[in-house]
């Protein structure tokens, strides 16, 4: 049965102490995501990127903390808001940016775009654009791990706005019934497009939903990467031990609009400014200073990352366009090696 923590207060249970090198590595990863998204936005404005572009700015700590809670063999699923997790998992900014530019050098060779990034070598399995549609797929990779008795956990991210759709319910029901090795992570950034949670859900504490599936529920804030790594680690270990799935609600906030086409008029400046007080990058930056890391070292790191991202943009600009043969050649997989 779902333990009481499911609906617990937000006070973290025994705040973990970060390790300097590890936190520095995580800061680098978060900063890389932040800068990547900023440049993506700029290039979208320039018309180099088309379609929908959903930025992860403000939520970086979740992807980075999650990746460190996972093993390389574990499977990862995310929504269309997928650049952050892709980069955190190790996809190169070149490969990601080239995809946004619709180039053959992109991670999906220009077939998928922003919403459909894949990095199968790293077990990042996309990049999905139908709300609720990927949760069952994630349950499926967890099913396979159990079927083959593999030591693999699946983690599946989605927004709080996705908890009302049937796809959420059916994946949760099956995962709970079959005790699949999976962690469902609801990134509650308060809004589904322009709609705040109170207008989409009768519940405020979404982790209560875990009870309906006899699943363990957890709930905590999303600005402290160390806390995220630990708490998701507990859920991942539970799955790895074969003790079944966990439903985790992480309270976060996106600093940009839903996508590039959203001016985000539905929220106040003050709300945004107040939320930015808990900018995961600033929080981590402060923690590092506290741990004795020199300001100058972090400045150097920032510059290094700026160059990395600039190089990625240059690479994407110069890369070859997506290819007709790839499009026509991937409608069906070859049968020969059947």
């Amino acid at each position: 049965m779902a333990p009481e923590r499911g609906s617990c207060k937000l006070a973290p249970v025994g705040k973990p102490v970060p390790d300097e090198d590890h936190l520095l590595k995580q800061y680098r990863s978060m900063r890389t995501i932040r800068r990547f998204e900023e440049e993506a936005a700029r290039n979208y404005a320039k018309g180099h990127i088309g379609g929908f572009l959903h930025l992860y700015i403000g939520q970086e700590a979740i992807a980075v903390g999650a990746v460190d809670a996972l093993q390389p063999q574990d499977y990862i699923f995310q929504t269309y808001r997928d650049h952050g997790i892709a980069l955190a998992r190790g996809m190169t900014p070149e490969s990601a940016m080239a995809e946004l530019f619709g180039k053959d050098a992109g991670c999906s060779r220009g077939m998928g775009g922003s919403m459909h990034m894949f990095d199968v070598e790293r077990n990042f399995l996309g990049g999905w654009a139908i709300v609720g549609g990927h949760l069952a797929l994630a349950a499926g990779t967890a099913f396979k791990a159990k079927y083959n008795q593999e030591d693999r956990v699946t983690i599946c991210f989605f927004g709080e706005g996705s908890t009302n759709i049937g796809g959420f319910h059916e994946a949760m029901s099956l995962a709970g019934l079959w005790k699949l090795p999976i962690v469902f992570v609801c990134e509650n950034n308060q809004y589904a497009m322009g709609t705040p949670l109170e207008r989409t859900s009768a519940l405020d504490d979404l982790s209560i939903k875990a009870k309906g599936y006899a699943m363990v529920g957890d709930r905590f804030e999303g600005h402290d990467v160390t806390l995220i790594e630990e708490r998701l680690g507990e859920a991942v270990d539970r799955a790895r031990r074969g003790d079944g799935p966990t439903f985790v609600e992480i309270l976060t906030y996106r600093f940009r609009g839903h996508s590039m086409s959203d001016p985000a008029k539905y929220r106040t400046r003050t709300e945004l400014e107040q939320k930015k007080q808990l900018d995961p990058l600033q929080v981590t930056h402060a923690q590092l200073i506290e741990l004795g890391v020199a300001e100058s070292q972090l400045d150097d790191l920032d510059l290094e990352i700026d160059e990395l991202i600039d190089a990625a943009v240059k690479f994407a600009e110069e890369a070859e366009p997506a290819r007709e043969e790839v499009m026509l050649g991937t409608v069906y997989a070859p049968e020969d090696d059947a």
Partner: protein
Amino acid sequence: MREIRYREALREAMLEEMDRDETVFLMGEEVGHYQGAYKVSEGLLDRFGERRVIDTPIAEAGFAGVGIGAAMVGLRPIIEFMTWNFSFVAFDQIISNAAKIHQMSAGALRVPIVFRGPNGAARQVASQHSHAVAPFYAGVPGLYVCQPSTPRDAKGLLKTAIRSNNPVVFLEGETLYGLKGEVPDEGVEELIPFGVSKVARVGSDCTIVTWGRPYHVAMAAADALAKDGIECEVIDPRTLRPLDLEPVIASVAKTNRCVVVHEHWPYGGPGAEIVDQVQRRAFDHLDAPVERVSGLDVPMPYALNLEEYVLPTEERVIDAVKRVSYAK
């Protein structure tokens, strides 16, 4: 006549019908406070309030079903799908419920409901967001299917759809919303009946049947072909169910040639249905097989160069017309 955008034409239709009939309401994601994901419903919340302009959670099957249930007992819901791609999670509600209830109940219940939203490719929104869905709905008895290509047809058909006593699938286009065109002046009410095709261009050499976004591609192609001395007659069925092919058959009797131009995938759908009927009803008039120009038989890729390659182009229409005209 005045010029307004396709988006505004749809908004006017909803506004006018909501003004005249209190049982009409609009429900969908972001239709209210956000003013519509594509601003089609802009201003309607302010005018009609939260009772009649209802923002929903992301639960298409749920709110489509709520609409159908409300329609069964006398309301006239307009259900907006943010895009028609999301109708797939509500597919069973539309096929197994909306289209069936009137007959299952031997006529005791009616389902006066409109499902509307943007359909088809919308510039690089890629694989899961670019479906041209007409083939999934136009074949289903119990449904009506509209796919207007101009602001005037959009307004006149949507008003008819809202007043219909039957479920209507109303296919718009994100790439059409900004399109300007003439509509009747304020106060002049125009209801465009279902099942009446529109002859958009008169010509004696080849008949082109087209609708939706490709209608504009075909019209441009017809202008280009005219320069080469090939005069096309362009006919827009406007509603795919019921399908009015009388004018097409009459036209083919004159041109002896026919090309069908559409966005949806080549296999089946309204495109093939039109060919089937033309070859049957105008068999003795055809001097060449009926040709089709459609979206290519692939999932929609993200890259712009490929998307442009997949969608019907002016060139492909010109080639097809020349082929059936045995012209170089």
